[in-house]
């Protein structure tokens, strides 16, 4: 395992300590594994809490900040945080107007967040709503879209819900915006190499030196095919085709596009993918607004990329463009 760390056991806590030390203007850690926005949720504003396993920076913790999230509960690498930590994050995020729970559709996370919501509902009388992100088109067919896992599309939902909360929307309004963003996003990923979970000490999967896997998830969940590494344009074409098959778009449609590295894949390669994806959407008459190219939702040192589209209407576009900032992104 070639990683810069002190021990697998201290990996997450030392990471969070460094994160908060480097960016105290954004992140505070009032108790272990709970990161809250510095200064807290402004009074009367809806709080937004996310959470999930470590190893995906900037997801989840990184998106805490003004115009984005209020708090995050952090688990071990690729593992759910406990319901207790989530409940604590919810309490910290509560500014008196309730809290939206906005996170990826993974079994463990869902059970724990549900439990946490019950806990704060009973013990603290905090109203919560839940919106699950399930944007990965390769993880279930359209008829079972609710079973899909959440990947890089989370970033759009965080941004859009965060903007609606900053505007002063009530819990129902913020929840509606988050739901709309979640419904508007579709993602697909492809991987070239695995990554290593520190506590496991060995790669999450094995793949040939000249192979890629299309449709793979951010923890190495299996995709739809594995085969010889294709040329960048062919990869982009297939990804765009599969996204469009799931969410047909045409002339006059406006989307934002996120070309995301899973970690090791450098921006140079992302721009080569973006170049082609953009041309493909232009061919369809689809306009790309405020594209994102970079590392937004990762799997540590996994090599690969994902493409996410977020279909915009006037409301979503306005929310996407509203000011927001965290250590990893600024609008």
């Amino acid at each position, binding site marked *: 395992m070639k990683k810069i760390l002190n021990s697998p056991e201290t990996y997450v806590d030392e990471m969070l300590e460094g994160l908060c030390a480097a960016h105290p203007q954004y992140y505070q850690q009032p108790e272990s594994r709970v990161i809250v926005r510095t200064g807290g949720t402004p009074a009367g504003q809806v709080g937004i809490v996310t959470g999930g396993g470590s190893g995906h920076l900037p997801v989840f913790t990184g998106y805490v900040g003004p115009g984005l999230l209020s708090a995050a509960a952090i688990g071990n690498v690729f593992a759910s*945080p*406990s319901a207790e930590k989530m409940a604590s994050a919810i309490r910290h995020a509560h500014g008196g107007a309730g809290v939206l729970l906005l996170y990826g559709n993974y079994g*463990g996370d869902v059970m*724990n967040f549900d439990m946490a919501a019950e806990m704060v509902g009973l013990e603290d009388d905090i109203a919560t709503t839940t919106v699950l992100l399930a944007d990965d088109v390769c*993880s279930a067919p359209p008829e079972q879209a609710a079973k899909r896992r959440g990947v890089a599309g989370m970033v759009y939902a965080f941004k859009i819900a965060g903007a609606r909360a900053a505007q002063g929307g009530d819990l129902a309004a913020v929840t509606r915006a988050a739901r709309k963003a979640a419904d508007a996003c579709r993602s697909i990923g492809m991987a070239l190499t695995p990554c290593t979970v520190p506590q496991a000490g060995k790669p999450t999967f094995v793949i040939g030196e000249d192979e890629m896997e299309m449709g793979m998830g951010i923890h190495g969940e299996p995709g739809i095919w594995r085969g010889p590494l294709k040329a960048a344009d062919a990869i982009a074409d297939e990804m765009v085709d599969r996204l469009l098959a799931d969410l047909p778009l045409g002339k006059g449609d406006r989307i934002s596009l996120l070309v995301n590295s899973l970690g090791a894949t450098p921006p140079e390669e992302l721009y080569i993918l973006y170049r082609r994806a953009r041309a493909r959407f232009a061919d369809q008459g689809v306009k790309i607004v405020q594209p994102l190219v970079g590392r937004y939702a990762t799997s540590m040192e996994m090599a690969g990329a994902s493409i996410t589209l977020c279909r915009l209407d006037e409301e979503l576009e306005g929310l996407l463009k509203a000011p927001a900032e965290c250590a990893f992104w600024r609008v």
Partner: protein
Amino acid sequence: MSAVLTTASLRSAVALLVTAAEAKAPILNAADGKLGDGDLGITVSEGWREASHRDLPPDVGMAFLALAKAFQAASPSSFGTLMATALMSAAGVCKGRTEVPWSETSALLGKARDAMMARGKGELGQKSVLDMVDALSTATAGLTEPKALADAALAAAARTLGLFRDRPNGLGRARMFAEKSIGLDDPGMLAAKVMIEALAA
């Protein structure tokens, strides 16, 4: 084995579970590695280890609650949370009592199954730990003696694994490997079997 379930029985059960879970962790990790993220052995062994560090009060319900909380804090992955949910449901049933007759075992398991189904939004027949708990509840119905309970549970565990082995998984991460899962035991069911074997020994 004492004539009734007490906090002392829970303490010795936890001790047996810690040892067994630690010994079988690699097997459970490997089974989960084939169909999920490979952490189930850690989940189970760290959950019971943490449980073994907690003070258990004489009230059997409160003792179950302490175990539930320990499991949740140490092992918040799916199986850990479901275990915590099961323990929590037992806490509700046993609250206020220092002795619980063994004859309630089947009912406790049935309650646990229902709570786990609600928590994980799962159904029976999807090849998960739910099917195992359900089978155990059925197999232990009407039994009142530890030895009989143990024998029935062991037999049910083996039978249930066999029954589901050649079906596809329909819940949790393993759902994504539905095809591949045919012929493989569900890791959560295996974990339940490991625990039953430890308690029945």
